[in-house]
């Protein structure tokens, strides 16, 4: 099933043309990896999906992004962001306790019942493989966790809201290999329930977890195909060059 349909998407920040004429589809329950060198528009693309770019005052967009056939600009922005969760590049806990971090989204959506919040928090932490490590210290500040734990906390916080899609923006860029493996393991399990879009600077990570891989260069979508195809027989020689580490 098609989750996102993107038509003729163009994005500008002031005079910078950040995304050029992007057309693609994102399937439900897949992990779509997005690779490309710095400034290729990967993160901009990701932030278009949950309309986080709108915070930028000189942002301009043409074309359309549809989620299940509905234009994202026609949906109430809070509802849209509840549907499309995001995990940022650096672990960014809010300055609250572990429990308050995970329950934040739910509380902001009006959930008051303590019992219900506790259930949801446990469920989300389980899904992010963090529950066992924090179940006895939920009232502690989230900043006391290690970097890897903080990033899994951020995943749990996103899951607790009950999204359909999760956007990962280089989620392992600040993590050690073991924490990275844990986050990747979580992602692969999560795709059964969620659609995942993963922006990564780590080509090997895209090869490990992505069902399909998209290659962006200078704001253009160069190629999008099954991951094994991209990594063995890419259509475009620029893709091949990037994967082999010739540039970027």
């Amino acid at each position: 099933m098609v989750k996102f349909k993107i038509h003729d998407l163009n994005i500008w920040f002031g005079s910078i043309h950040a995304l050029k004429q992007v057309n693609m589809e994102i399937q439900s329950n897949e992990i779509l990896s997005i690779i490309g060198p710095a400034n290729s528009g990967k993160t901009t693309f990701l932030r278009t999906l949950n309309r986080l770019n709108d915070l930028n005052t000189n942002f301009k967009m043409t074309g359309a992004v549809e989620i299940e056939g509905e234009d994202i600009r026609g949906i109430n922005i809070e509802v849209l962001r509840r549907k499309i969760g995001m995990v940022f590049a650096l672990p960014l806990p809010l300055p609250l306790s572990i429990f308050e971090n995970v329950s934040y989204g739910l509380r902001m959506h009006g959930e008051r019942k303590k019992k219900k919040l506790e259930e949801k928090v446990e469920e989300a932490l389980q899904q992010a493989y963090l529950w066992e490590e924090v179940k006895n210290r939920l009232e502690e500040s989230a900043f006391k966790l290690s970097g890897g734990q903080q990033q899994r906390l951020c995943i749990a916080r996103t899951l607790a809201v009950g999204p359909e899609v999760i956007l990962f923006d280089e989620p392992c860029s600040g993590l050690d290999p073991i924490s990275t493996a844990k986050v990747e393991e979580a992602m692969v399990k999560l795709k059964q329930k969620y659609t995942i879009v993963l922006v990564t600077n780590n080509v090997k990570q895209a090869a490990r977890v992505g069902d399909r891989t998209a290659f962006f260069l200078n704001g253009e979508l160069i190629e999008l195909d099954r991951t094994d195809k991209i990594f063995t027989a890419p259509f475009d020689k620029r893709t091949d060059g990037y994967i082999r580490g010739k540039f970027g």
Partner: protein
Amino acid sequence: MKNPYRTQNIAFFFLFLATLLIIIPVGLIVVVIIQKGLPAINWQFLSDIPRQGMRAGGILPAIIGTLYLVTGAIIFALPIGLLSAIYLSEYAKDNMLTRIIKLAIVNLAGVPSVVYGLFGLALFVVFLKFGASILSGSLTLGIMILPVIITASSEALESVPYSFREVSLSLGASKWQTTRHIVLPNALPGILTGTILGLGRAAGETAPILFTVAAFYLPQLPKSIFDQAMALPYHLYVISTQVPNVDEKVRYGTALVLLTLVLFMNLVAIIIRYKFRKNKKW
């Protein structure tokens, strides 16, 4: 060849000397005022009305008057200052109007305090017919400390990392929820500190209250906000220049009380800042 260690030491010496010089005036002021004023301080001085043409008795009406004025100024200035700071730092788009507002705030901070006094006289005392009263004086002081509160609050709000706002919004919280639950609680210590520093300034100013509230001599305590009141800085001015033969220790005693009041407020601000900084989680 120059010896780098020697130039390093010379630089260090001058930097340290300049810093040390800051302590001297503060230390001297405090020492002189305590030395000359402390003998005047006793229970009667703090709790009695002025007697014998302000040459004896106490300064209670001035203390109470200053407390009233400061409280009134804060009731007026904190809500307006805080709300406009939130608007400016969280909501305002960077356009012509916003820039004009910001320019106005900067200029408001630069207006000499005696001009505030005249303005308060014209607007509150005469035009709005509040008369020379605590109300007029509080409003005038409030306007004077508004830029202090707005600037301190804006800075405190802007010092909350932008990423927190993005995270909160990305979880589907509204802009107001983000401001209310994430930005504001983390900016609170800075806002409080700025407010208290503003209060300290309001407590010590003479010019804005000169035409709007201050009474030369008023042997009873004010009964309503439409009454005139005595105030410490003005009282100090009066007994230092307008009334002959006032004992030196009465003057310095009054100065000591005013100084203690202002330093106490600053101390509270420092304690708040210290406590919150210790608990700061990022």
